């Protein structure tokens, strides 16, 4: 029987796939559950409570966390806007022009920030800023974030750009549309889902970064990850679990939006 011996289903693989999901989610779920634990001890379950969420918003360290959150969000927003713009512009240059020498080199350059290990980028950027005597702080974090956000914005944008056939712009050119018109009435509207998706991924990546930020932040400026890292050096406290849960939810919601955008996209293409 062909069906019975089909290599499509291998016994045990389904169990391993489920195990994989359990491994990926168990630690996150446990932290989420314990962030609602009333007990002061992080080990004993003392009933459901929102006291740790209250603490991060109104407690002793609330001001520190709010400042860090503000830095994180504003840096992530600006870095994502700039990186998405640069990536969109580069994607038009690479994807929507006729084949050219150095095309692969350009693609490699755009993915370079992912290839170089984060700690190496961190060291190199720190050395760069101190050599040019640039004061470490908010701006140096922002600049470093723009660089490593570019590939994350570029990937969904170029993928989307490749799926738009060139017949549209050829037809427009036959009808004597100029470049500005092609850009405004063809390319940009078709690219919106890709641009939003690229922006969201860049935003999350910036929001999550710890290593590079900790090297180039200087004294006094904190983002949420560096503030969390500073706190857990003295042990995992329940309020950190509440903060982590919030950050975890933000990332998950943004990824989900990005996922549904690309899915909605797929459906439109199929129809």
């Amino acid at each position: 029987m062909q069906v019975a011996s089909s290599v499509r289903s291998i016994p045990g693989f389904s169990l391993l796939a489920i195990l994989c999901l359990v491994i990926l989610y168990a630690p996150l779920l446990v932290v989420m559950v314990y962030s609602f634990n009333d007990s002061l001890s992080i080990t004993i379950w003392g009933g459901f409570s929102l006291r740790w969420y209250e603490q991060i918003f109104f407690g002793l360290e609330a001001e520190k966390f709010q400042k860090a959150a503000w830095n994180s969000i504003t840096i992530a927003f600006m870095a994502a806007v700039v990186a998405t713009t640069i990536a969109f512009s580069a994607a038009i240059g690479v994807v929507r022009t006729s084949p050219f020498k150095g095309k692969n080199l350009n693609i490699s350059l755009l993915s370079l920030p992912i290839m170089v290990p984060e700690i190496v980028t961190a060291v190199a950027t720190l050395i760069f800023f101190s050599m040019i005597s640039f004061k470490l702080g908010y701006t140096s974090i922002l600049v470093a974030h723009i660089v490593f956000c570019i590939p994350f914005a570029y990937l969904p944008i170029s993928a989307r750009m490749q799926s738009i056939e060139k017949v549209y712009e050829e037809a427009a050119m036959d009808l004597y549309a100029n470049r500005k018109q092609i850009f405004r009435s063809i390319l940009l509207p078709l690219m919106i889902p890709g641009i939003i998706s690229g922006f969201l991924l860049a935003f999350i990546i910036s929001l999550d970064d710890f290593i590079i930020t900790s090297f180039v932040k200087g004294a006094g400026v904190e983002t949420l990850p560096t503030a969390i890292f500073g706190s857990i050096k003295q042990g995992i406290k329940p309020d950190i679990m509440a903060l982590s849960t919030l950050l975890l939810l933000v990332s998950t919601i943004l990824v989900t939006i990005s996922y549904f955008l690309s899915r909605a996209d797929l459906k439109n293409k199929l129809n």
Partner: protein
Amino acid sequence: MEPVYHQKRAFDPLRTWLLLPSWVVIGVFLLIPVGLMLLISFMTKEFRGGVIWELSLAAYDQFLFDRGLFGDDPPTIQWTYIVIFLRSIVQATIATIFCLIIGFPTAYFIATRDPKNRTFWIFLVTVPYWVNLLIRTVSLKFLIRDNGPINEFLLSFGLLSEPLGLINTNIAVQLGLFYSYLPFMVLPIYASVERFNFTYSEAAADLYADKWSTLRRIVFPNVVPGIAAGCILVFIPSLGAFIAPDLLGGAKNFMIGSLIEEQFKGNAGNWPFGAAASMILLTMVLIALLLYTRQQAKGEVR
């Protein structure tokens, strides 16, 4: 046949201007800094963290040789840093193997589902990747620490007489790396299995090949590029990882990332040495990438 147009495309004249911002930003803020880092690795260290602009091979020399406290003893091989690098390679390799053991079956299982369900499964695997790595590692630490939920559970059922004592061991670091980069293994393998044409395996089944030999001899060779991509995506970040060894490993299980970080924190640092260690790490990564591209190129010829 489709006619071939040698027509200029609308955005051709603007290409240089479109690419320029990415060249400038990545060039100025990544390529030049890496060049500066290479330069610094050949300079002399200043005592309060910084450099003196005098050419010196001291950083690389310190990496390999021990010349005593005053630098005038006959050189003996300095094992401390070599051991840290070897440990990093071993840890990254073990993490990669474990990711493959769990990641391959997962990717294979997902790729052989109904197309409608595949994207949802892949979505589930991807979400944890986008969650802050620091938070994920802290969560893992919370789960496996001596009085954490796993140990409490095992102890209360009498399955253990004392806690596992995982924290601050090599095993905890491997677990951390495995947990951090597992999604990276699943995605490329999934992509290559999904592209595999299953009529080949059905032909093998018609010829009375059993499942395992079909998997081993027909499917496996065809998805090797995906496996190689997955391994490289896990191995490279594991090699330079900082968060997992720092939070889960403690001082005895130092890896390259922590060694580098230490050179740039506070006054005890040594910038040229940190730069040299970073250059060695970067070289190792480039070698791994080179081996990978050669392997992929060979696959395409076949």
